[in-house]
């Protein structure tokens, strides 16, 4: 019985190490990105992997800042201009590959990068907000240290991370986390845009 427990613990440890070591940007993906978006895009992804690796063992806040800073370097552009559609949720590969995107593309890329870094996805929400400054709908990534604590806002307009109370320019409308909803329902579908994004992520759409 003792031997079995030891074996189980060793197996779990091995699995954890293996998973932890798995790169966010795999070599095969790098190759495809190189083929499609050329060398600069590839360099961006190598830099992404380096950034992720550099904060792997840091606190959630340090991870948030690193990821927020990294992705906020990407240029803003409307979906219509980049994809020819009024609203499109791009995968992190498309977003960084094209090096441009709109607010939800920042949110998605930040969300998956933080999830990769081991930040509990239940603390992260896609928050639909209204920008009072630009008088238009907007989306930010919010981080809840605890479910009841004040969230931190990761925005691409205002590049610094602030507690929600300091973002007077934003009026919150609705929080959304597809992974949490997927856990509850027994249906594969939960949210139209999220479902489409999940599919594209599985296909590793670049």
């Amino acid at each position, binding site marked *: 019985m003792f031997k079995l427990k030891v074996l189980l613990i060793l197996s779990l440890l091995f699995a954890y190490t293996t998973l932890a070591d798995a790169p966010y940007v795999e070599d095969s993906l790098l190759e495809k990105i190189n083929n499609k978006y050329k060398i600069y895009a590839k360099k961006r992804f190598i830099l992404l992997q380096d950034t992720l690796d550099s904060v792997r063992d840091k606190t959630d806040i340090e991870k948030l800042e690193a990821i927020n800073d990294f992705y906020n370097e990407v240029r803003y552009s409307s979906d219509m201009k980049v994809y020819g559609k009024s609203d499109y949720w791009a995968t992190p590969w498309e977003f960084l590959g094209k090096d441009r995107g709109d607010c939800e593309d920042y949110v998605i890329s930040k969300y998956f990068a933080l999830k990769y870094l081991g930040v509990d996805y239940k603390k992260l*929400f896609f*928050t639909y907000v209204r920008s009072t400054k630009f008088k238009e709908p907007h989306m930010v990534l*919010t981080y*809840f240290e605890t*479910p*009841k604590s*004040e*969230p931190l806002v990761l925005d691409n307009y205002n590049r610094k991370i602030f507690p*929600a*109370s300091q973002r007077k320019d934003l009026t*919150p*409308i*609705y*929080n*959304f*986390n597809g992974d*949490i*909803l997927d856990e*509850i*329902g*027994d*249906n594969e*579908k*939960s949210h139209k845009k999220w479902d489409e994004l999940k599919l594209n992520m599985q296909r590793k759409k670049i």
Partner: protein
Amino acid sequence: MTLFKQMALLLSLFLLIILTTVLILNFQSANRGVQDRLYEDAKNTATSLSLPLGGANGDLSIMSTMINATFDSGNYRKILLVDIENNILYERVLESDIIVVPEWFRELVSLKAPVASANVSAGWSQVGILSVQSDSTYAYKQLYTILIDLLISFIVIALLSLTALNLLLHAILRPLKEVQKQAAAITKNEFIIQENIPYTKELADVVLGMNNMVSKVKAMFDKGNEELKAHKELEYTDENTQLKNRKYLIDRLPAYLKVDSPYEKGVNMIVAFGGIIEANEKIGHQQVDKLLIAVAEIFRKSTKDINDSIVARINGTEFSIFLPGYTGSDAIELARSIQKSCFNAIDSAGLDQHETFISIGIYEYNHKDSISELFSRSDNALAQAKFNREHIHLEKADTAVEVMGKEAWKLIIKNAIEKNRFNFVSWSVIDTKNRKLVHNVLSIHLVLDKNSSYGYAQFMAPAIQSGLSCDIYKKIVTMLFNDSHTLLSTSTYSLRLPQEYLEKEDTYLNISDLLRANAAMLPFKLIIELPDRLVRQDSKNIREYIELFRRYSIDIGIFEFIGESEDYQYLQDLRPSYIKAESSYFLTQSDQSISSLRLITDSVGISLIAVGVSDIDTLDMIKEKGVYIVQGEVTETLELA
């Protein structure tokens, strides 16, 4: 199983499998659609309700009111709001089911309404998660309606398809049915030519092949018929006078000189010319021949009204006038009349009546006489006639002293009919080539008591005289059908039915009733033998009998055949199983006649059976004539294979 049934079964099965598959797929698709719809409804509600719930700023009373309003106005199984720590904030669950579909349907179709969820937030904070599950009751109702509609459509389509399939198969296989009919007809030796050639090539080839074969067999039959007719003409007709000849008379006599002959007595008159040599010298051969033709005409005219009479030229100068049922005294009258007419003819030919004259010997025969007795006694009568003044002499058969008188016989027979004192006995008919039993011929014994019984030959003659023969046959035919279990063997039996019985008014109805009641239970195959004389008349009566027997799968045989018909087409039309003729008939036929007869019978599958074959020598001679199936005493000595 017929080809039609096999194809119909296979295609119907195929069709039903396809339709059932379509039905199941349709229903499964509808089921999926309904389940998707359930989720979509739940999802829409969850999303649309989560936004105003967020606006309640965490006030549970407002949130529960909103949930109540939504729950009560729609079809939901459950609406659940949990906080971020998974504690239930508010829950509404459907309390009772509205039964809208049968229980079996709910058990058969497992419909699980999925749960849809949405995050609920107030400002920046998380309130919790809202889960909505639609009520599947109405989905069940919808699915049940779909299933019923599908089933109705399925039944209608299946019925229409099966009807169409049936019609189509009938149309396609109609030519095959015709082909089958023709093939079945060939099996039964009914040769029909198919006029409608099927459009299907394979069937057309079969029909053309069968038509060709049928034409050839028909041609064979017709050739045999023509040849036999020609031979009959030569073999049975006197070339000069066109009267029948001695051979014909001998072939016909067995039908009259037998125990169950319809005529107990009769007269054989031999008319002989005297002084023909002198006549030839005086007026020449040609004139004498003319005289003989004139005399033949006198004989014909004189006997034309006498039933079953036969006029035959026995040799150059002698004629036989055979008159069944005629008495000696009537015969003398007739002889005188003939003699008178003949003398006139002799006068007309320019001859002297004292030099050229006729003598008439009359023999009043008894049906128990043999052919040789008949001829020798007739010759005696003629010899007497030649020497008496009138040149006519009557001689009567010896009157055998009967052990019993007519009345005594009548009493015994009547008693036997009333008390069922008849027993069946049987004689075997053997195929000598294969040494096999072909069938058993049934005969009857009259059993008086334990120790004494009479054979058919003993009691039938007095029965005929007493007019009881038909009653005996009626009795034994009834016995045959009602007490058939008394016959031990379960092979084939034949029963001979005489003309007078068949022609009796109530016989047809009587046999018809017996067959209807008992034919199905007969433990053996039955062949009814009919007399050739009756069959070749091709009367309505005989056709009805044959149709009746065929209806009950009873075969027909022909007995007392002497090939006397003017046309043998009736054999093809009636197709008896066999023809029975006296062995003497086969022995006296020329090879050509036998060959023609065989051509006819072989082409329509009729066997030839020689009866009265009494010894091995006769059997060998019969075999040489190509007839191998025999009946008679000789069969007792033959060993079967």
